[in-house]
């Protein structure tokens, strides 16, 4: 199939993301005229001095949603191809759990997210937790040849870190426990402009680096043996896959909490809709499909005055997609 056949889908997604992005900027709990929003965006002054902060907040969380949704979806796609398992996602290698453990150590350890130090501490601890699990995985991967065994090892890391977090709950007070639980519900809000620069730089760089995996991914669809037979270095590919997807998932988790379902549901949905088998085409489509779902979910959260948790919305949207795709694949006897 040619690239041309997927252009309509790609265009719809880009237009959809664009529309949702503007809706997120224009609509919210505080009604503002379109002219006021444009005025603020172009550096003008509004009647209410808080409005510029509100627009900045809407802009930041929309950009975060686009990047985080895209990153999770791409990460999920690569892992599903690599593990040849439709239920593989950014959380399966235990890296998300590692980030969660790092965050839990800080929050349940009593450093609040309200202060600048607390926020920085949360991000640093999350990164350290994720990198620790990542390094452990890379080390273990040297001794494990079977990808499924690596998947199981990742799941075990997840259980292990979850157990450690449960132990931390025992010493935490009510406020810290509540703070951690709320963080676990996921949110695209709260990333300031400075943090957004770092976040965007990391996500864009890593997403672009994922294009280095296009050739190996195209070959892996036909199986590991086939990929090896055409000269793909499986060991190196595996290392890059673990590192790229791991860091993508870790960065999103640290900033937004463990956001569920996007990483699993979007690649599956795109695989059903897309005609091309070339990952140079699939990766950007999956990225924008992830962005679209994340922005849609955040829009619903915002329209509920933030009373609905992000993960509740992604689950409501994502779970039926997964079930639908699995049934459809079963009917067509398709496998990864």
């Amino acid at each position: 199939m040619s690239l041309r056949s997927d252009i309509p889908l790609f265009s719809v997604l880009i237009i959809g993301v664009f529309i949702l992005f503007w809706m997120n900027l224009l609509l919210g709990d505080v009604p503002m005229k379109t002219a006021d929003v444009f005025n603020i965006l172009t550096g003008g002054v509004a009647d209410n001095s808080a409005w510029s902060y509100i627009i900045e907040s809407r802009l930041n969380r929309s950009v975060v949603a686009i990047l985080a949704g895209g990153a999770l979806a791409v990460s999920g796609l690569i892992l599903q191809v690599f593990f040849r398992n439709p239920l593989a996602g950014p959380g399966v290698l235990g890296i998300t759990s590692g980030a969660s453990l790092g965050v839990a150590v800080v929050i349940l350890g009593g450093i609040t997210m309200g202060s600048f130090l607390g926020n920085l501490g949360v991000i640093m601890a999350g990164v350290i937790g994720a990198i620790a699990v990542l390094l452990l995985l890379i080390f273990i991967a040297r001794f494990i040849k079977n990808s499924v065994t690596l998947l199981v090892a990742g799941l075990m890391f997840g259980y292990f870190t979850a157990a450690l977090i449960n132990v931390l709950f025992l010493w935490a007070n009510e406020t810290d426990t509540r703070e951690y639980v709320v963080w676990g519900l996921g949110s695209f809000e709260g990333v300031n402009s400075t943090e957004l620069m770092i976040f965007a730089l990391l996500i864009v760089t890593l997403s672009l680096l994922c294009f280095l995996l296009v050739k190996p991914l195209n070959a892996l669809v036909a199986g590991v043996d086939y990929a090896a037979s055409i000269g793909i270095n499986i060991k190196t590919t595996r290392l890059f896959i673990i590192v790229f997807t791991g860091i993508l998932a870790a960065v999103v988790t640290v900033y937004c909490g463990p956001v569920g379902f996007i990483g699993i549901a979007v690649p599956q949905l795109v695989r059903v809709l897309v005609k091309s088998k070339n990952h140079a085409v699939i990766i950007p489509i999956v990225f924008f499909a992830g962005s679209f779902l994340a922005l849609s979910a955040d829009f619903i959260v915002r329209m509920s005055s933030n009373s609905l948790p992000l993960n509740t919305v992604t689950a409501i949207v994502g779970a039926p997609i997964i079930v639908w795709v699995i049934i459809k694949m079963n009917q067509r006897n398709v496998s990864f």
Partner: protein
Amino acid sequence: MRELSLLAILWSLIILNSCVQHADSETSITPNQLDQEKVSIEYAEGFDVVYEPNFIKVVTQSIGENTSFTDSVFIILDSTTILDESCKIINQEEIRLACQSSTHLAFLNELNQLSQVVGLCGLEYVNNPEISEVIKENEVIELCMTDQIQLENLFQCNPDLFLIYPFGSSQNNDYASKGIHTLLIAEYLEKSQLARLEWIKLFGVLTGKSKEANAYFESVKQAYIEQKEATVPTDKTFIMNLPFQDQWFMPSSKSVGVELIEDAGISYYYSGEKGTENISHSNEQVWNDGVSADYWVIIARREANYGLADLIAEESVYKEFLSVQNHQVIFCNTATADYFSKGVVEPHIILKDLCYATGQIESHTPQYFFLLE
């Protein structure tokens, strides 16, 4: 309707007497028990004290529609009175109390009865040095690990009465089967500050200090009412609290805390919103409203020298708030002020703090609330 009322009275009498069986022998009443001053309830809806010749019945009950419970304990005045096995009987003298809330300690402390406390949930949350010292000296046992009551610790301190919250009350049956008497305490459900304070009378009855409880309540009530009547209402408005993640949980306009602040002559910004539960607002909405609200009342746990600059560092939009620009942020630091415990028995001082912060009175030394600098 009349028939229903009669039925209700009859039912109350049956309930009241169902526990009591009188022995045939002559009554034996302890003189000091007979001398006890009675308490009468003026504001509180969540408890009642029923005086009978041979016993006192202390009843606690739910307020409003959100919870539904009733509970009671009996204090026997006549040692020959025999009660049904299902009745919870306590002895005022040398009563050993276990408490699920540190708020209970504030009531007992005012009555000088802290020594009766043998177990407490959340020893580490007691930040009143005076109370903390006493419970440390008395080797009060910690009863809770996270939110769960540790039964072994409860058995170890062996209380005569365990004062508990009504939520999660299914556990009560468990306590009863293990021979531990409990009494449901829900002073926080009361609809006014003075009604909450009036629960000191219940603690007075339980510990045989009714006279002291009455005296304390009357003195605080007088001071509170005098201050409230001296306050001149203004058209200034206030918002409350700080966000939790993306959400601001503003108290209901009918909440006890809001009414206390309104008694200082300022109006709640969200007074038009209905309901009795906390109101959840998004950041956007409060940022929008904060620009026009005159005062910002914050009750939060922060470092001892927390100031306006620290507040702005938490979120830069705060510098646009009218209250911040006019230095009218009224702050209670729960790390240093025992607002949630001692504050319940000192509403008159809190009201004075607020009146001082809003310029209603000129001379006062704040103890709970002060203007952030």
